[in-house]
């Protein structure tokens, strides 16, 4: 695994994979894709890094508390957006009825809460997948 070729190629590939993942997340409402697929693609780039460079030393790892915060904060953000619908006088998870601007269909900033939610899901799924993988492959990772 810790071959030079793999390291060089993966170092070359990882940015492209990440850009692709970000594209899938950000353009999820305009083209096929969305938070779940894009988040997984972003996570897979990090997993590729872990695989190519071996299990990283402590200071090079993505800190444990960072992924934990992103996971839970993503979920809390989803609930928060849902509650915004209630606070704005309609129902839980209301979008256009709650008065979020829908924008022009086809633009990146269209869709009211959908764009925000997709982004939150993408971040959350990416960190979730990294956590799942690194905990399954590694013996003990204490929280930082």
């Amino acid at each position, binding site marked *: 695994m810790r071959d030079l070729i793999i390291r060089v190629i993966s170092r070359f590939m990882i940015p492209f994979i990440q850009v692709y993942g970000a594209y899938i997340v950000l353009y999820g409402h*305009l083209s*096929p894709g*969305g938070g*779940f697929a894009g988040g997984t693609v972003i996570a897979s780039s990090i997993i590729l890094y872990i695989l190519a460079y071996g299990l990283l030393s402590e200071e090079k790892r993505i800190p444990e508390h960072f992924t934990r915060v992103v996971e839970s904060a993503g979920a809390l953000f989803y609930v928060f957006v849902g509650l915004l619908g209630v606070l704005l006088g309609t129902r839980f998870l209301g979008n256009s009825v709650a008065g979020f601007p829908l924008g022009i*269909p*086809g633009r990146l900033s269209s869709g009211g809460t959908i764009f925000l939610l997709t982004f939150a899901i993408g971040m959350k*799924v990416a960190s979730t997948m990294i956590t799942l993988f690194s905990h*399954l492959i590694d013996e003990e990772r204490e929280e930082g």
Partner: protein
Amino acid sequence: MFDFVRLADNAFYGMAIILFLTGFWIMLSHANLIKKIIGMNIMESAIFLFFVAIGYIKGGSAPILGREGVTYINPLPSALILTGIVVSVSVTAFALALVVKLYQHYGTVNVDEITQIRRGEA
């Protein structure tokens, strides 16, 4: 008893059912827990295939809207299956964690051997 023309029309459904049963069979017949988990995944994606096939329309196109004069397929099954895939990945991850932990305790991931070890201890 069987109307083969109709069955050939519905080959997607038929194959989904056969794959479902294959996955089910792998889950039942193998004592190895990782094999069971693979069987579980095969079974679930077979159901997802079934679900997606329900929403298909001949000559339809993907539900990326905003084009004129196009028949779109039913987007609802796709959306449901997205949820389903994520659920099945989560279940798999958790089951694998349990398997890894079981291996640390028993030194095997085979259910039959685990049962034997337990009998021996009792």
